[in-house]
């Protein structure tokens, strides 16, 4: 951060203003759009022919869609970690990462909501959930808390954006007419007066306080969707904490990946420095160790007891059909990143990026393992059902929709970075002044 002191306000502004897509940006966006369109076509087929196009049947009624939903909810928690917790703890170095974390949170929560609707056989009956909803049902709590978290995340993205909008409006030539209109609509009233800053800071502080319990609720309630069901692998009192620790890990991993890419693509080396990677690396190690600890609790203790109804489920995870995936998720999602990031050299940008990618991929498969194998092991034996009911592997429509949703989330982040500064300009300038004054 000390290398930022030499930078002038103009240079910071110029560096951090949103940039037009280059050739690589266009290709990247094009690929994402194509994946989204394939997903949309698969969803059209699902709407037309029904959920029968998926490979979900009577037993595995929550397949890749719900795994994806849990993944999105998990990764969205990073907004509260980087923005709220660090802000309340007065951690200054996280400033360049706050907006990255917040946009990851917003895009993830949008697609978490959408993927739930995709999982519904009759989406036109979605409103029935509210009309005939029972407040006793954890699903109802989930719907409420997801909506709430989305609004809070949007507000947390919007308030710190206001001073930057004033700067963006100033650079009309660079942003173009259309975007300038958007900036004006969103923030032309921001004059940067003392009173406006006071109100904005107060609002951000309130948001930071309120988002933490809501974020904990969102993932705890998601875990309760499983834990309130009496099934092998889900029947745990530890599920809330287990899910939250996993969510923070995947979120932090996601931020690491995003900060590396933004740093390289937009040449932000002066703002997202090696120190940021170093500190994020330490956080990821801590979170990975924490998540590993919960995994040991979740799998080792039931395996020690090996209760008869849980035996088939655990054996299939440890040595059976799901063993390669299970050990992949444990090794790639936790153990290898811990080993990489424990060393100082491992906390350099490129190894950090690799570790971050591993954490995110491992986390996605981990969600799949939480959802599917349990459903294949009900307490009552599966009898007189077609052979296909005994196994589950997603159909191409399910893969296409799931990948489409992931691409959609990335597309939101991409467009956001195209329209708004991915690192807060005003906050960076202010912090630089404060640092200079303190010296």
């Amino acid at each position, binding site marked *: 951060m000390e290398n930022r002191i030499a930078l002038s306000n103009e240079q910071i502004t110029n560096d951090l203003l949103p940039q037009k897509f280059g050739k690589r940006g266009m290709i990247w966006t094009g690929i994402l759009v194509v994946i989204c369109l394939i997903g949309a076509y698969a969803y059209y087929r699902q709407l037309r022919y029904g959920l029968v196009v998926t490979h979900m049947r009577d037993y595995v009624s929550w397949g890749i869609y719900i795994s994806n939903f849990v993944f999105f909810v998990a990764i969205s928690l990073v907004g509260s970690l980087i923005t709220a917790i660090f802000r309340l703890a007065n951690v200054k170095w996280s400033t360049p990462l706050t907006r990255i974390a917040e946009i990851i949170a917003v895009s993830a929560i949008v697609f978490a909501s959408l993927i739930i609707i995709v999982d519904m056989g009759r989406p036109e009956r979605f409103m029935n959930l509210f009309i*005939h*909803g*029972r*407040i*006793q049902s954890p699903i109802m*709590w989930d719907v*409420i808390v997801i909506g*709430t978290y989305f*609004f*809070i995340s949007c*507000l947390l993205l*919007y*308030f710190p954006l*206001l001073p930057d909008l004033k700067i963006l409006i100033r650079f009309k030539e660079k942003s173009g007419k259309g975007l300038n209109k958007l900036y004006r609509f969103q923030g*032309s*009233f*921001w*004059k940067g*007066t003392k*009173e*406006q800053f006071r*109100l*904005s800071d*107060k*609002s951000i502080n*309130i*948001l930071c306080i*309120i988002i933490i319990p*809501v974020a904990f609720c969102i993932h705890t309630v998601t875990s309760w969707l499983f834990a309130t069901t009496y099934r092998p692998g889900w029947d745990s009192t530890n599920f809330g904490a287990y899910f939250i620790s996993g969510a923070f890990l995947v979120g932090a991993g996601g931020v690491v990946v995003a900060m590396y890419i933004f740093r390289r693509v937009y040449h932000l080396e002066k703002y997202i420095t090696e120190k940021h990677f170093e500190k994020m690396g330490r956080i990821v190690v801590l979170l990975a160790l924490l998540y590993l600890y919960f995994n040991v609790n979740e799998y080792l203790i039931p395996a020690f007891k090996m209760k008869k109804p849980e035996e088939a489920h655990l054996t299939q995870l440890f040595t059976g059909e799901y063993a390669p995936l299970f050990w992949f998720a444990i090794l790639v999602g936790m153990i290898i990143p811990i080993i990489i990031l424990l060393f100082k050299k491992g906390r350099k940008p490129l190894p950090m990026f690799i570790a971050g990618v591993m954490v995110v991929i491992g986390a996605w498969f981990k969600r799949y393992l939480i959802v599917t194998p349990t459903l294949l092991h009900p307490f009552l034996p599966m009898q007189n059902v077609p052979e296909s009911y005994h196994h589950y592997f997603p159909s191409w429509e399910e893969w296409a929709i799931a990948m489409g949703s992931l691409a959609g989330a990335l597309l939101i982040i991409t467009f956001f970075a195209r329209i708004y500064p991915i690192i807060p300009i005003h906050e960076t300038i202010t912090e630089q002044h404060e640092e200079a004054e303190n010296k």
Partner: protein
Amino acid sequence: MKKLKINRYLLLLSVLITTFAINVIAQETPVEQKEIVKLHYFNSNNNLQYLLLESILKTGKKIEPQTNKVFMLFLDKNQPDNLIAKVLTDKNGKAKAIIPPQLKTLWDSSSQHTFILVAEATGKKEETSSEFTITKSKVSIDTSTADGIKNITVQVMKYENSQWIPVKDVEMKIGVERLGGILSAGDEQTYTTDSTGTATSEFKKDSLPGDQQGSFILIAKVEDNDELGNLIIEKRVPWGVAKKPDNNFFSQRTLWSTRFRTPIWLLFMAYSIVIGVWGTIIFLVFQIVKIKKLGVSN
């Protein structure tokens, strides 16, 4: 020392070989298979006489029910006219046969009867038969109350020389029919009949839950008596505590009720949280309006 070590290993090796050899020899010995068939006679409330057959297959130390095995049951003589039933054992190796009305004349003609069990020849197994004799009997149950003490009297009689005579030394259970079996009416687990064929038990189980009218069934049961078989007699008595049905169950506010019967505490908690959080969100939106107003006025 080295020699001693080698000797020790040789000894261990020879023990292992011997154990293995014994094991192999033991495995080669053909396992004896034994068929065990038990026949029980039941007389329920003096009006239903039936037979219960239980077939077991013992292979070495392993015991398992013999399923789908055909047996024929005859009364007194192994001839078609005396056939009680041709039965097939179920998955538990059991089969039941009621003495049919057409054998009533034969049944009434004698005080003692022999049940002949014939197992049909299957595969290598030849036809086998066995017999089981019982004396016709009846059992009665009566209740009386004296000085607030309730008594249950059970009498067992057998048919002999064209008349019913009391049976001495018959062991039985006297109690109340419960879900898991018979709850003994008094302090003893079993009672034995005296020279008058009577066994009496004082009813000591007060405040026992009954049905909606406060009734329950008293039961006396003679089990596997060599001469009489199994005898059961029942009597409904209003000695219990009337059970009031809980019609309120579905109108309770519970976590599994409909949305109209949500527990108050849950409603309170859920609405408090929703109002609290959304109140704050509305407050923050109002802050944006305030910021906007400040900007416009400037």
